């Protein structure tokens, strides 16, 4: 090994400030989209120059659920589907924190679907990063509510015959103020979207289409992780502001990506204070979080 290479290896990993290096190596498979997505979040946080003491990450269960365990932030690994209501409680108690929910499609949209739509409806100020790999990966590749029609999974050996959710449409129609979708190939655009989402006041949602070569691609004979990235390259269609009725994902179809929604709406805490003022006038002191009387 040349001296120059050794020097490079000694250099601090650029993400070290944001990762629990004492927990690396992580458990994710080679070519998984999660590494890229975590890098996108880390880069976004670095570029936003936020005080990292004031950023909290909450995850549910599954491959993506493990993200909270690798981010060097106050981080919570909760139960299956419940990251969002846990994050809601944390956010209301400490509204000054940036609360980020980082979880998978099965966790957020299947078992956690009810919490997802209601928290969007309330426009609670948090950012949801949903890594969609079309499958339950941690448990061995079972069908998910995002699995495209006809795609195979461990529990749909003859191909999936259920209609999948269109996540951007679901988020937007439930009340999200920011909705974007990118793939794990669109690293810069994804990072930019995460930055926008974190900066947005209200319920922001970023869907990340991510490769699972160990399960989804293997079961469906789609090749390696690299083949999936090539597929994203050849089949992603950037269409900002697209009609969300047109962004369904079919099996190996074109994937419409872009920023779909970016609107202003009072947040949950804005509305809470509005309601308090309406009822009590000057007697009401705006809620600012915490335990004491404000």
């Amino acid at each position, binding site marked *: 090994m040349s001296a120059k290479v050794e020097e490079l290896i000694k250099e601090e990993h650029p993400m070290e400030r944001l990762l*629990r290096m*004492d*927990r690396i190596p992580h458990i994710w498979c080679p070519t998984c989209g999660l590494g890229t997505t975590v890098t996108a979040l880390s880069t976004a946080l670095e570029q936003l120059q936020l005080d*990292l*003491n*004031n950023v*909290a990450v*909450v995850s549910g269960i599954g491959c993506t659920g493990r993200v*909270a*365990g690798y981010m*060097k*932030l*106050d*981080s*919570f*690994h*909760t*139960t299956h*589907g*419940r990251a*969002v*209501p*846990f*994050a*809601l*409680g*944390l*956010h*209301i*108690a*400490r509204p*000054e*924190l940036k609360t980020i929910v980082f979880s998978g499609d099965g966790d957020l949209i299947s078992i956690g679907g*009810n*919490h997802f739509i*209601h928290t969007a409806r309330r426009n609670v100020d948090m950012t949801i990063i949903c890594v969609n790999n079309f499958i339950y990966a941690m448990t061995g590749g079972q069908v998910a509510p995002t699995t495209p029609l006809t795609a195979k999974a461990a529990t749909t050996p003859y191909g999936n015959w259920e209609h999948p959710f269109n996540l951007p449409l679901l988020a937007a129609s439930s009340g999200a103020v920011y909705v974007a979708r990118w793939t794990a190939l669109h690293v810069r655009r994804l990072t930019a979207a995460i930055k926008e989402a974190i900066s947005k006041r209200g319920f922001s949602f970023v869907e990340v289409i991510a490769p699972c070569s160990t399960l989804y691609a293997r079961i469906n004979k789609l090749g390696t992780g690299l083949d999936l990235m090539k597929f994203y390259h050849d089949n992603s269609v950037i269409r900002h502001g697209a009609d969300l009725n047109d962004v369904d994902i079919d099996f190996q179809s074109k994937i419409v990506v872009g920023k779909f929604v970016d609107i202003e709406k009072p947040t949950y805490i804005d509305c*809470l204070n509005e*309601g*308090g003022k309406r*009822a*009590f006038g000057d*007697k*009401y*002191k705006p*809620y600012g*979080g*915490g*335990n*004491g*009387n*404000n």
Partner: protein
Amino acid sequence: MKADPNNVLTGAHYLDGNHACAEGAIAAGCKFFAGYPITPSTEIAERVSRRFPLIGGVFIQMEDELASMNAILGASWGGVRSMSCTSGPGFSLMMENFGLGLMLETPCVLVNVQRGGPSTGLPTLPGQADMMQARWGSHGDYEVIALAPDSPQESFELAVHAFNLSETYRMPVLIMTDECVGHMTEKVVIPPAEEIELVEIRYSSKKPGEAWPFEATEDLISPMLEVGKGHKFHVTGLTHDERGYPVINAEAQAKNVNRLVDKVNKHAEEIIWLQEKDVEGADVVVMSYGISSRVVQPAIMKATKEGIKVGQIKMVTVWPFPEKRVAELAEKVKSLVMVEMNLGQVFLEMDRCAKGKCETYLVGHAGGTVHNPEDIYNTIKEAAK
């Protein structure tokens, strides 16, 4: 720490048990309440929703009980005293994440206003049949703390006490009341704030980088870590080490789970609260909790009048179970009688701890109404033979 006078509705009031419970929680400094409507507990949520806006608290009606339980855990990690209330079916839904609260050692208070079960059962009528669910309803091994008020006054007092226990032992605490107490209206005297002593949770004084969320301590109670202070800590529902990092093996499991169990058992004598009357020299001791401990009174009076030596133990705390005390008594008395509005739940514990040293009797009842005191009297008479 004394209670904040802004929160305390000092004075004599005419309240039902649910309203009194809400006032107790508010007096204890509860500032976040997440709940889902369910009979017969809803009055707690309603009162909190009316009282919170002017004292800086947030009430939120969640989409379901799973969300409610998680929201209070999240808020508790945000440093805010949090609670929820529910009844039978909702309690079942909360069980998974009650377990998360135990595993993350998160202080909070959960009230179950018990109704008749199983399933939808008797929404508007009382029961005490969730006692074993309180003890074992979440999966895995753990210990719980559960309190059972018998009146609106005690609903107020035990709500304060529940918060104190949860902050002392850094864990969720259950208040297992019932429809009867919840909807019974009586005089409730709320003392001045300066007479309400509140326990403040111990936060770690260590610097970021040196503090861990489950630091080993002699008393087994780890100091809590505060979010936003640079600790950048991690907590997980997975089996973990003292850093909060997941460790998936048998050794870590033994350490983690035994500590959760030992934390309560080691402090059991401090936690257990029994109110005993005429127990010394008694031939028969009647044990009960919650509303049943009031229903036993006429039966005990009648039996005493007839010359039977009857003692009574009202269990203010049902969990942890007073194993030692029951074992002691079993050596001395002829019989122990458990009166509870179920078909024999806490009775099984009493029977186990008596180890055959005395007779044990159950006066059970499927719920829907309180016991007929005559049934209790008949059992006392039988037990005294």
